[in-house]
């Protein structure tokens, strides 16, 4: 098994009949992802791209062997959908939806922690892709990614694809390309992703894409300093962002000294992470380790 998933993973799409769910199902299938069922309450018995739709996750799991779910349900229903997935026995969830209420995110996180068998990335995440094997979410464009040994882990959705594309353009492939989500409370934090990548045989170099706000980079740096063995290249968006201004993501707000760019650069440097000052320096710095 790769990071969370591999080419054999059988996938469920929650919210498959919505506009976004339909479109992404089509693109994921095109990429080769094995989607076996979809769920939309009230639409059981229908089909999308010849994929059967069920009313409940439980029902879908009675008919199919499924471990992974991608979740596109509208923000007000995300908490319910994730809990439904957990209780039905899904092992890994990708929560694409953005604008999920903050307190719902807290509740999801707690339920996931308690279940022990369930892990998720997101909310507000572009997805996760193992190039040429499987794509969950929006990172499903074959021209952008190519198989290789560099893992990309990013808090920013749009930068995830951009950096993968920059690497692909110079012939550097990726072991996995994944978003963590731009919200303050996410299912998988940077440190947890790094721990998994340390164990992943395919991954030789790790690229961490952070941004101002929050404490994920500082937390991950501690682990890298103490236990990291693989080379890490770090990039931080928001060098020129003014303080106290919310730059899009709920996570990207600087409070006092916590979460500042300086604090994150310092943490990265102390941990021996190679810090790229612009996105253009990333391919070059990664290249040095290959």
């Amino acid at each position, binding site marked *: 098994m790769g990071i969370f998933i591999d080419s054999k993973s059988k996938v469920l799409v929650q919210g498959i009949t919505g506009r976004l769910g339909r479109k992404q199902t089509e693109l994921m299938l095109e990429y080769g992802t094995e989607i076996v069922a979809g769920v939309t309450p009230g639409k059981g018995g229908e089909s999308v791209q010849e994929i059967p739709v069920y009313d409940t996750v439980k029902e879908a799991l009675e008919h199919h062997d499924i471990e992974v779910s991608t979740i596109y349900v509208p923000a007000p229903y995300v908490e319910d959908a994730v809990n439904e997935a957990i209780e039905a026995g899904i092992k890994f969830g990708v929560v694409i939806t953005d604008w999920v209420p*903050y307190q719902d*995110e807290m509740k999801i996180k707690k339920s996931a922690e308690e279940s022990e068998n369930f892990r998720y990335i997101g909310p507000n995440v572009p997805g996760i892709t193992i190039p040429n094997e499987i794509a969950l979410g929006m990172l499903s464009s074959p021209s952008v990614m190519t198989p290789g040994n560099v893992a990309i882990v990013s808090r920013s959705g749009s930068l995830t694809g*951009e950096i993968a594309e920059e690497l692909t353009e110079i012939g550097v492939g990726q072991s996995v390309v994944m978003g963590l989500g731009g919200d303050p409370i996410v299912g998988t934090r940077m440190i947890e992703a790094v721990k998994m990548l340390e164990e992943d045989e395919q991954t030789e170099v790790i690229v961490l894409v952070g941004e101002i706000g929050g404490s994920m980079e500082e937390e991950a740096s501690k682990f890298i300093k103490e236990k990291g063995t693989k080379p890490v290249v770090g990039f931080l968006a928001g060098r020129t962002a003014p303080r106290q*201004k919310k*730059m899009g993501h709920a996570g990207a707000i600087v409070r006092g000294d916590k979460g500042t760019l300086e604090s994150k650069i310092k943490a990265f440097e102390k941990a021996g992470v190679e810090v790229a000052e612009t996105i253009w320096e990333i391919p070059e710095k990664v290249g040095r380790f290959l």
Partner: protein
Amino acid sequence: MRLLEFEGKNLFQEFDIPVPERIVLKDVKDVSKAIDKIDLPMVLKAQVPTGGRGKAGGIKVVETEEEAEEVVGKLLGSDLKDHKVDLLLAEEQLNIEREIYCGIVGEDEKGTPEIIVSSKGGINIEKIAEKSPEKIERIRVDPRFGLKPYQARNISKKLGLEKSAFKSFSDVLFKLYKVFDTYDAKLSEINPLVETKEGKLIAADSKIVLDDHSLFRHPEFQKKKSRHIENLLEREGSEKGLNYVDLDGSIAVMANGAGLAMALMDLISSEGHSPAAFLDTGGGLSEQRMKDALTLLLKKAKEESKVKAILVNIRFMISPPDAMVKGFIDAIEEKKDVNVPIVLVVRGRKRYVEKAKELLKGSNINLFTDIKEGLKAATEQPSRR
């Protein structure tokens, strides 16, 4: 969104948390109403969504009606810490025995609500937290079950309050959690919670930050979301669901993603230029969203001639470019009096990039598929002045 003090106190009152006798003033004429309701001396407090109001001169104690009128006249309409004062709160003056702190805040790392209390409340709470953290008690609770009365009692016990104060404090804390939970807050705080010489606990201030993502559950606040944004372009952005930040440089930046837009700004700075605006269009490439976004930047360029270019970077992931192109063309058509070069970099899903190129053939948008080239084209534009 941050609530004003009196709005927070209204929520407190809804949950039976004791609050001072009070009335909101909009005009000097309202002073007589205040005098009827509240005994002198009374406290007049500017209602602006920021801390440090007292130090900035936004909180005054007045002894007479004349003095009240003078202070109200002076404060209303004035600028306090970058906010215009439209409302004042007149309140009874409390006989303060001591000030206590209690707050409930979402803690991002673990994703749990954290209950924070201290017997040393007041304006120096941050200093106390830093210098004597032992004077501050914290517990985390399960967000699914909330704060239980016994948990409120346990943490209250640690403050060393006398018998009656202990009971009423744990009661206030329990109710404060109800406010946090019911209104989907990210923060609900009483600082100070005053213990009066008469032995009562009263919330002398309120600080409540609601979660913008949850406002669909609280429609009474939904339309107030953008009211405290003083910059008009930023307010328009917020109303249209765009993340716009007004800046002072020469190149206005827009991208469909906050990280991407920030990275572009960083590139502009590293090339010795400075960004004039940050705009993250957020989710989806719908025609309306794209039109609104570009229109906002065109307005910015119209207002400020030092904006010499608009640099847009769109990454195609799942949406085809048709709607985006239509939105852009519409915006340019409607604002054709603004003569500013638009540089568009398109990347991502290859067939969408090709489609965008085809659709934009013959338009006056400068199109690139390489960020470096787009950046160069934008920064090398001559000044419009």
